[in-house]
C-alpha cells in the first residue's frame, strides 16, 4: 500500500516537473516547483515506512522548511527585480 502511494506521488512529481518545464510564465514554474517540493516531503515520509528507516522523517522536516523558505525567497527576489525593471524602464 505504501508502494502504491509512492508510485502515485512519483507520477504527480513527474506532472509537476513537466509543468515546470512547459510553464509559460515565471509564476507557473514557481508553482510547479513548490508542488514538486511538497510532494517530495510526502514521498520521503512514505519511503520512511516503505524502507523501515525512521531517520528519513528528519530529512522530510528539513526539506519542508527549506522548500518553504526557498519559495518565499524566490518570490521576494522576483517581485523586487520586476519593480526595479519597471522603475528603470520608465
Amino acid at each position, binding site marked *: *500500500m*505504501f508502494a*502504491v*502511494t509512492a508510485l*502515485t*506521488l512519483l*507520477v*504527480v*512529481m513527474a*506532472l*509537476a516537473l*513537466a*509543468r515546470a518545464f512547459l510553464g*509559460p*510564465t515565471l*509564476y*507557473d514554474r*514557481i*508553482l*510547479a516547483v*513548490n*508542488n514538486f517540493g*511538497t*510532494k517530495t*516531503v*510526502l514521498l520521503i*515520509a*512514505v519511503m*520512511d*515506512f516503505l524502507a523501515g528507516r*525512521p531517520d528519513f*522523517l*528528519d530529512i*522530510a*522536516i528539513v526539506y*519542508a*522548511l527549506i*522548500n*518553504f523558505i526557498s*519559495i*518565499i525567497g524566490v*518570490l521576494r527576489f*522576483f*517581485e523586487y527585480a*520586476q519593480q526595479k525593471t519597471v522603475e528603470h524602464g520608465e
Partner: protein
Amino acid sequence: MIELLLDILSWVLLLSGSFFCLTGGIGLMRFPEFFSRIHAASLTDTLGASLILMGLMLQAGITITLAKLIMILILSLIAGTTASHAMAKAALKSGMCPLDQVDRSQQPEIKAYKDKS
C-alpha cells in the same frame, strides 16, 4: 481485530490522499492559466498531504515517529497555504489577472500574458 481496523482505515486514508494528489497533478498540467492552476495545486495539496500523513500516523503507533509526522503536518499546513497566498499575490502584483477578467481589461501586460498562455 483493532489492528486490522486501523490498517484498513490507514489504507483508505493513504489511497484517498494519493487520489487527491493525483487530481492536483492533473489539474496543474491541464488547466489553462496560472490562477486556475494554483487553485488546483494548493487545494489538493493541503487535503492530499493531510490525508497521506494521517494514514502514516495510524501506521506509526504512539512513538517518536508520530510526533515527527504531526510536526510535518502542521508545518506543511502552514507553509503550503502561506506559499500559495504569496504566489497568488505576487502574480497579481506583477500584472496578471484571471482569465475571465482578461477581456475586460486592456492593460498591455495582461494582453501579453494572454498571448503567452
